[in-house]
C-alpha cells in the first residue's frame, strides 16, 4: 500500500554500480514492508536549502523486508551531491508513493521494456513476477546499458533478454522499440504478452503506439518533475486523453498507456 510516511532512513550501503549509476541501500523497515513494484520514494539528497526539493526514485528492490534498494544515475546537481553521502548517515525519505504495476495474470507473458535509467522498478517487478517475463532493454551503446550486476540479475530473473543498442554494439541495432516490434510480429509459442515499460517519454510514447497497434495491454511508468510527491503541489501532472490531467505522484506513476494523451509521437524511439 502506498503511504505518505516520512522516514529517517539510514544509509546502509552506497557504492558506484558502474555505467554512471550508484546503488544505494536504505534502512526503512516501515517503507520496505509497504512497498510493491512500481512504487517510488522522494529522497532529500541533503539537509541544505539548495537543492531544495526531494528527488523521486523508483524502488528497485526490497531487501529482507527492512531496507530498500535504489539505483540512481548521476544526472544533475542533486544526484551529484547524493554521491557524497556516506553509510551511517540518515536521509529524509518519503514513501512508498504512487500506484505500482498491476499484478500480471498467471497466463500472461510480461514484456518488461526498459530504456535509459528506467530499469529500477522493472528490476523489482522481475524479482516478483519475472519467471514468465521477457526483458527488452535498450540504450545508445552497450556502455549505456544498466550496470553489469543489474543485467546479470535481470537475466537470471527473466525468461529472456532482448538487447537493442543504437550503434549495434549489443543486440539489435536500433531502438528498444525495434526489438519489441520484431517480437510482437510473431510472439513465440502463442504467448499472451502484456507490456510494462519505464523510460524516457519518447520511448514510452512509441511503446504505447506499438501496444495499441497489436492490441496488447500496456502499462507505463511516467516521469515528470515533481515538488512534493504527495499530490498537493499539482506540479507533476500529465495530459489525459479523456481531457484534463492526472498526477504522476498520486494516480501514477504507472498508467494504462491508453489513458495518456501522448501528443505528437516523436519519430525517434528514445533511448
Amino acid at each position, binding site marked *: 500500500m502506498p*503511504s*505518505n*510516511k*516520512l522516514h529517517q532512513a539510514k544509509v546502509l550501503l552506497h557504492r558506484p554500480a558502474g555505467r554512471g549509476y550508484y546503488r544505494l541501500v536504505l534502512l526503512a523497515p516501515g517503507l520496505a514492508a509497504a512497498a510493491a513494484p512500481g512504487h517510488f520514494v522522494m529522497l*532529500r539528497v541533503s539537509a541544505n*536549502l*539548495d*537543492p*531544495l*526539493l*526531494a528527488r523521486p526514485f523508483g524502488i528497485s528492490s526490497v531487501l529482507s523486508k527492512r531496507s530498500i534498494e535504489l539505483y540512481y544515475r548521476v544526472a544533475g546537481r542533486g544526484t551529484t551531491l547524493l554521491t557524497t553521502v556516506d553509510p551511517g548517515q540518515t536521509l*529524509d525519505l*518519503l514513501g512508498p508513493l504512487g500506484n505500482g504495476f498491476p499484478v500480471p495474470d498467471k497466463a500472461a507473458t510480461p514484456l518488461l521494456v526498459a530504456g535509459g535509467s528506467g530499469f529500477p522498478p522493472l528490476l523489482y517487478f522481475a524479482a516478483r513476477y519475472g519467471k514468465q517475463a521477457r526483458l527488452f532493454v535498450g540504450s545508445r551503446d552497450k556502455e549505456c546499458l544498466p550496470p553489469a550486476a543489474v543485467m546479470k540479475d535481470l537475466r537470471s530473473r527473466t525468461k529472456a533478454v532482448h538487447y537493442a543498442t543504437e550503434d549495434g554494439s549489443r543486440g539489435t541495432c536500433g531502438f528498444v522499440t525495434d526489438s519489441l516490434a520484431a517480437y510482437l510480429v510473431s510472439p513465440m509459442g502463442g504467448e499472451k504478452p502484456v507490456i510494462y515499460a519505464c523510460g524516457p517519454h519518447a520511448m514510452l510514447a512509441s511503446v504505447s503506439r506499438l501496444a495499441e497497434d497489436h492490441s496488447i495491454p500496456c502499462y507505463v511508468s511516467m516521469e*515528470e*518533475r*515533481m*515538488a*512534493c510527491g*504527495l*499530490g*498537493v*503541489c*499539482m*506540479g*507533476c*501532472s*500529465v*495530459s489525459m486523453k479523456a*481531457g*484534463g*490531467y492526472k498526477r504522476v505522484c498520486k494516480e501514477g506513476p504507472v498508467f494504462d498507456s491508453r489513458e495518456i494523451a501522448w501528443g505528437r509521437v516523436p519519430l525517434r524511439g528514445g533511448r
Partner: protein
Amino acid sequence: MPAVISFLRSYLLTFGLFAMAMKMKIHPDLSVNFAGIKLKNPVLTASGTFGYGEEFADIIDLNKLGGIIVKGISLKPIKGNPPPRIWETPSGMLNAIGLENPGVDVFLRDKLPFLRNYDTAVLVNIFGYSLEEYVGVAERLDGVPGVAGLEVNISCPNVKAGGIVFGTDLKAAFDLLSAVRKATRMPVIAKLSPNVTDITAFAKVARDAGCDGLSLINTLLGMAIDIRSRTPRLANRTGGLSGPAIRPVAVRMVWQAAQAVDLPIIGMGGIMTHEDALEFILAGASAVAVGTANFVNPRATLDIIAGMETFLTQEGIGSVKELVGQVSVA
C-alpha cells in the same frame, strides 16, 4: 550523614523551584486572534501547498495547526496548465500550476467535510477570472459551517477587462475587494500580489475596501530558460517563484504593509524554520503561513510551532503577541 541529607534537601528544593519556574514558562501563549478568527497558534499552511489537508493527515496531526488555508477555489472547476508546470531554482521553485481545482461545489461536497473533523481554523482561498466569479464563490461560502474566513487571491487576470491583473491595478483591486466584502459576512483577507512597485498602496486599498486582514506575499513572477533548446522551462513560459529565495523580499513587504495600515497580517514567503517565522512576526505579521517548506519537509509546520514555543520559553516571552511588529528601527 545529616550533611548529606541537608544537601539533598536543599538540592531537591532548588531543583523543585527551578522545575516549577520552568513549568510556568514551558507553555508560552501561542494563540492569536486574527481578524476575529481564533487561532491556537500563529502557524497556518499557505494556499496551494497543502491541498485540502487529506494528503498530510497521515504525516502530521492537523489538530496541531493554527489553521489551514486551502488550495485556491473557483466557481467552476479549472483544468490547469499543460506540463512542465514546475522548475527548481536556487533555494526556490517556479510554478505555473494554473490554479487547477475542482470548483466550489466539489470542494463543499468532497473536501470540506474531511476538514471539519479537525480542530483547526479553515480559511478558504478564492479566486476568479472576473469580478462576478469572485463574488459567486464568496456567496457560495458565506456562512458555511467549518469555514472561518476567506482569503482572496487577487493575483489573477480579469479576463473580461483585457486580462489586467486585479492585484496590480489599484482601481481593479479596490472594486474587486469591495464587491467580495459585500458578498460575505465572513472575515475577508486580501492576499496581495508582490508584483507591484508600492505594496503599501495595495494594503491601503484593501483597508479602504473593508477587508479584515492582509495576506502576503503571493509568488513573485519569474522565468527560467533552457539554453540548449532556447525555450522556457515552463510550458506557461512564466511562473511564480516561491521558497527561501523570496524570503527577504517578503519580510520587507510585510514590514512596509504593517507600517502603512492597521490590519492584521498573515506573513509568508520562504518560511522554512521558526526563526524565519519569527522574522515575519517581528516585521509586523500576526500570523504566518508555510508554503513550499511543506514540499521539502512535510513536518515543517509542526517543527516551526515547536521551535517557536521553545524560543519563547528560552527568551522568557509569555505570548507570541508581544513580538508582533517589534522590530526596532530607531
